[in-house]
């Protein structure tokens, strides 16, 4: 190969890392700005109490948003996450209160009440994936089906009643602490770490991005497009299930009408603020985490400063736009 001259190609190896850093930095900037604002304005902001409240509340958003990031990376979207949270949240108390299974052993019931609801949510996730990958139904309507019907199922199963309970073993996932760190925060960290490695280092992670980037080309390159798509919806379902368990455990009650309500929007907003394109082909897990923190902090700021609900909505809208805008600018540098 002598006739081809490549020496003219200039050095630019460092560039992508800088870009990646900056695009993360954009969301980060929004986050820091919010923090500074709170330190200046919100009373008692710098306290363990505040940190605790925010961390425990952000955990569920992060967990769901991580699944959403993967789905969005394939060019899809999952509107059903809130409903799947309600389903898992309704199923768990029914299990450990012995309403569903003829088992007496409390230990077994508790374990089952962790496993079965998540499996159930995964099954529904698989159903979403089946509609999208096998039947080629557009993701937004495919998951709209369970968005509508899923919560209905949870309500039918519980008759729309509130299930109140007190079960320290089950509630450990929301109330317990390991080495002083709330269990749900640990779950969140594990989920984020796994997803980060999945996206960056694993084969299926890269295939997820390829499918979102150009599905036709991915198929022609031997990427198992259907399997990849199904996979992300199953993961999203599973994570929604976990989040549902955490929410009911935290509330000591399960209300199928409320668990996970509006979660899909928070999760999608977190993904977008975090810098993943909704058109697919990108998955920025760390960005999503920051995005979720921004969303949570916005919510907390408005609440802690007594901004009336209506005004809070408007401010939240403005902040989302500003955060995404900053993020995109940074991405362009």
């Amino acid at each position, binding site marked *: *190969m*002598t*006739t*081809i*001259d*490549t020496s*003219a*190609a*200039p*050095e*630019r*190896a460092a*560039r*992508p890392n800088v870009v990646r850093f900056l695009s993360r930095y954009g969301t980060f900037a929004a986050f820091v700005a919010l923090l500074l604002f709170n330190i200046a304005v919100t009373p008692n902001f710098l306290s363990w109490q505040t940190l605790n409240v925010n961390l425990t509340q952000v955990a569920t958003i992060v967990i769901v948003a991580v699944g959403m990031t993967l789905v969005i990376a394939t060019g899809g979207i999952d509107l059903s996450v809130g409903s799947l949270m309600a389903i898992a949240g309704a199923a768990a108390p029914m299990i450990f209160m012995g309403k569903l299974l003829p088992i007496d052993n409390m230990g077994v019931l508790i374990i089952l009440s962790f496993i079965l609801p998540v499996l159930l949510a995964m099954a529904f996730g698989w159903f979403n994936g089946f509609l999208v990958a096998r039947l080629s139904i557009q993701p937004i309507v495919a998951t709209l089906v369970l968005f509508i019907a899923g919560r209905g199922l949870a309500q039918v199963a519980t008759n729309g009643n509130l299930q109140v309970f007190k079960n320290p073993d089950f509630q450990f996932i929301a109330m317990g602490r390991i080495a002083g760190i709330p269990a749900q925060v640990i779950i969140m960290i594990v989920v984020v770490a796994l997803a980060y490695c999945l996206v960056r*280092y*694993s*084969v*299926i992670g*890269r*295939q997820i*991005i*390829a499918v979102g*980037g*150009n599905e*036709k*080309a*991915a*198929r*022609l*390159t*031997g*990427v*198992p497009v259907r399997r990849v798509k199904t996979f992300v919806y199953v993961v999203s379902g599973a994570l929604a299930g976990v989040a549902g368990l955490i929410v009911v455990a935290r509330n000591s009650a399960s209300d199928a009408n409320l668990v996970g309500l509006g979660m899909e929007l928070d999760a999608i907003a977190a993904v977008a603020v975090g810098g993943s394109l909704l058109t697919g*082909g*990108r998955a920025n897990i760390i960005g999503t985490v920051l995005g979720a923190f921004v969303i949570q902090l916005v919510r907390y700021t408005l609440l802690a400063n007594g901004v009336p609900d209506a005004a809070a909505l408007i401010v939240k809208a403005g902040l989302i736009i500003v955060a995404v805008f900053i993020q995109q600018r940074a991405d362009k540098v």
Partner: protein
Amino acid sequence: MLLSMQDISKAFSGVAALRSASLSIAEGEVMALVGQNGAGKSTLIKILTGAYQRDTGLIRLEGEDVVFATPGQSQARGIATIYQEINLAPQRSVAENIYLSREPKTRFGLLDRRAMRDGAAAVLKTFNLDIDVDLPVAHFSAATRQMIAIARAVTQKARLVIMDEPTSSLDEREVAILFQTIRTLKKNGVAVLFIGHRLDELYEICDRVTIMRDGQTVAESAMADMPKMELVRHMLGKELAAFEAIARDGGSEAKPVRLLADGVGSGVRVRDVSLTVREGEISGLAGLLGSGRTETARILFGVDRLQSGAIRVDGRERDYNEPADAIADGIGLVSEDRKIDGIIPDMSIRENMTLALLPKLKKAGIVDRARQQEIVTHYIKALGVKCASPDQPIKELSGGNQQKVLLARWLCTDPRILIIDEPTRGIDIGAKAEILKLLRRLADEGLSVLMISSELEELLAAADHVTVLSDGRSVAALKRNELSETALLAAMAHQVN
């Protein structure tokens, strides 16, 4: 002077693509613009049309300084452009695509749909293209789409028509039609800027030539005053290694058959195709536009389902559901349309190159980065991909360099059968000889190549034997000693009645 561009510079994120390049064209002149892959030709014309903004420089159109902020503005000033990656709206009809942004209107401001339909059909007829102009553009092959894009440009009543590699997916017959059109344009005083890598074509149609290298204009002269060898030297900055015939004279008939298609058919485009590819040979697949070459490749690779006939790979009958099945059998396909079927635009060169290999690059599900890096570095060097770094998104590469990455995508999987649809599409003359030689060397090492090409010269130089398709049927199988331009043309023109 109709147009002059002077001292145009442009950098993408700090990397210079153009360094004070210049270009000037007179009325009624056909100007060739040549240069290696990545020399900056497409960037220069995109700056001219307003698709990109220049960093420095002057653009003067009919003596007046102009800056176009959008392609719409240059179009309004009489510059019609055919971009390298065919830009048409795939779901809109042929007629609409031809007239988009300057639709004929009735008195009431409504679309004059009849005028559009008739006008489109009429202009396509002058291109010898008799197609239903109500069908969406996505219905048609790359070559037809290219012709539609050309038709769109020449009907714009422009003063300057820019053609960025318009012939790269056309066969000789269509090229002849295009040249006829260019001559007509010229007669009407329209200037044409013609970018291409096939030198013979340039000498045939162009009056003058501008040569670029590494973002600079290095020479400009009348075509007649520029001998081929000198042109190539300007382009490459050095002499071109002699382009020898690299096909072998027979000898492969004794080798076992790797890939056999026996009366393969699917849908209306492919009815009855039979061909064989033996171990270690380069088998050509020729035919006119619409003869079913690309569609045949898609069936062999499991993209479209086989409906009749049989496919045998290494003697075993195969009916692939998915490309993944074909890949598992050691088959690779470099597809014709790299924008639609090839690149994952936002992914890096590294990942685009190793996407097909990925399942074999893993340890416990994790990508083996070190080996990936090794492979990528090797192929970037071996194929001379001009890029800033392997982490650059592939969409930032010039067209020809993207093609090289896609070729490497399959070469690195170490395939046993490689189907290549237009292997050197958009690749410059220096790299083209290298790629054909590389294919030959791989064939010598045992690779079986099925090469689809519209360039007779390429088939004649590289193929050990050629199957000719016409109207979805294989109508001739020419052995090496029967191969000649006339024989190929005669077989391709074969009509089945």
